C-alpha cells in the first residue's frame, strides 16, 4: 500500500478529482496549503506593496492506494494537473505499513479502498 501526496494548483482540483474517478480512485483527502517554490504567481498588489508571491495557494491531495493503483493515480494527477507551467507541483509516494478502516476496523489492502 502506498500513500500518494500531491501538491497541485488550486484551479486544477476539479479536473484531478474527475480523472481520479475515471480510474476508479474515489477516496481522497484534500488540504488547502501554501507552496513556497520557484513559481512567482500572478503578482498581487496592495498599495505600495507588491506581493512577489513567496507563498502561493496550492492544494494538497492525499491518497492511500494499493500498489496496482499507484501508477493510475499518478497518471490521473498528471492528466488533470499538468499545464506545463512552473508551479504545477509535485507527487510524492510513500510506503504505508498499515491501513485501518475506522468504520469496520478492517485492516490492510481491503481497508484502503
Amino acid at each position, binding site marked *: 500500500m502506498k500513500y500518494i501526496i500531491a501538491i497541485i494548483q488550486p*484551479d486544477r482540483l476539479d479536473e484531478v478529482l474527475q480523472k481520479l474517478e475515471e480510474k476508479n480512485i474515489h477516496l481522497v483527502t484534500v488540504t*488547502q496549503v*501554501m507552496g513556497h517554490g520557484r513559481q512567482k504567481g*500572478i503578482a*498581487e*498588489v496592495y498599495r505600495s506593496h507588491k506581493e512577489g508571491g513567496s507563498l502561493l*495557494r496550492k492544494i494538497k491531495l492525499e491518497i492511500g492506494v494499493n500498489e496496482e493503483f499507484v501508477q493510475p493515480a499518478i497518471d490521473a494527477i498528471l492528466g488533470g494537473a499538468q499545464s506545463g507551467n512552473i508551479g504545477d507541483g509535485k507527487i510524492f509516494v510513500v510506503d504505508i505499513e498499515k491501513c485501518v478502516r475506522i468504520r469496520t476496523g478492517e485492516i490492510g489492502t481491503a481497508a484502503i479502498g
Partner: protein
Amino acid sequence: MSLATVSQWMQQAAEAVPAAPSNQAPAAAAINTGDTAWVLVCSILVLMMSIPGLALFYGGLVRRKNVLSILMQCLAAACVISLFWHAIGYSLAFSPGNGFIGGLDWAFFKGVSLDTPYTNYGATIPHAAFAIFQMHFAVITPAVVAGAFAERMRFPGFVLFILLWTLAVYCPIAHWVWSDTGFMSVLNPEVQGAGKAVYDFAGGAVIEVTCGISGLICALVLGKRKGYPNHMSPPHNLPLAVTGACLLWIGWIGFNAGSALGANGLAVNAVLVTQLATAAAGITWALLDTWVHGKPTVLGLISGVIAGLVAATPTAGYVTPGAGILLGVAASALAWIFVIKLKNRFGYDDTLDVFGVHGIAGIVGTLGAGFFASKLVNPSVVTQTGWAQTINQIKGIAIIAIYAAVVTYVLLKLINRFTKLRASNHEETVGLDVTQHKESAYTIID
C-alpha cells in the same frame, strides 16, 4: 498667462458648474426641514444598500476567488454612476423633455436648486435633495444586474456596460414612469388624466423588472460558468451574505419610504407595508423550503426577504398593509417556484437569480400595485384601481421588459467588439479577484 489668470479661470470653471443659484425667492418658504432631513437620511440609506449591502449580499454568495470582483463592481457603480447622474443622467431622466426622454437642461445639476423645491418632485424639499435621492437609485440598479453575470464578466467590460446601460436603458425608463413628462407617468397630467399612468411607487417596474430582464439577457449572452450546473461551490461566506441582506432590508425601508418625499403619512404607510410584505415573504420561502427540503434554509429566508422587499417597492405608497402581505407571499412563492423548480429546466446561468428573484417579484409587485392601489393610502394620485389599472401595469411592464431586453442585448454585443466581456477560461478558473484586480480576498495562513 499669469498665475492669477489661471487661478481665475479654474475658479470660473468650478463655478460654471454651480450647484444652483439660490435666488428663486418665494417658493423657498415651502421647504420643510423635517421632510428634507428624512429624504437626505433615506438617500444615505439607499447608498448603504449598494455599498456595503448589496456588495456583501452578492459577495458572500460567490466563491472565495470572486468575492472582490463583486465588491469592486458595486463600488465602481457607486463611483461611476454618481458622476454620470450628476453630469447628464438626472437631466435625461427627470428634466422636462418629450414623453420618451428628458432634455439636457439640468446637466451638471444646472438649475437644480439647493434650497427651493421643484414642486412635482417633492414640494417641501430642495430640488437637489430629490436629485441626490434618485442618484442612489441609479447607482444600485446596475449593481443589482451584476448578480446575473457574477463570477464571469471582465471588469473593463463591466464598467462600460453599466455606463451605457444607465444611459440607454435606465434613464429612459425612469423618465417614462417617474418624470413629469414621461409617457406613462402619474406626474404627467395628460397621462394621469387619461387614466393611462403606471403606478410604480419606488421602482418595481423601473428598477426591479428592468434589472431582472436585463440580467436575464446578460446571463444568456455571456453563457454559463464552467461546471454549471453540476459542479458549483456553495456560497463561500453565508454570514457575509446575511449581513448584506440585513443591510438591504434596513436600507430598503429608506428606499421605499423615502419615495414619499417627506416624513408624512405616506412614508409611514410605506415603512409598514415594506416591513410586513418582507416578513411575510421571508416566511413564505422558509416554509416552501421546509416543505420540499425538510428544513428552512437561511439562504432561502433571505431570498424570500429580497423578494418581499422587491414586491413592496412598487406598492408601498399605493396599497394597504393587508395587500402588501398578500403580495409579499405571492412574490416570494412565485420567485421560489421559478428559482427552485423551473430555472434548472431552462439551463441558463443567472448566477445570483436576478431574474428569478428581482424580475419575478418585481412583476408581481407591479401588477399588485395596480390591482390593490387604494385611495385611502394615496388619495392624490389614484384615479382608477383594480383590473382597469392592472391592464395599464401589464402594458407598462411589457414595454419596459421588451425595451430593456432589446437594448441590453444590443449593448452587450456592441461592447464585446471593443473589449471582451466574458472572462477567459483561465481567468475564470483562477478567479476574477486575482486576474481582474491582482488581489486575494483572504490570507490563509495567519
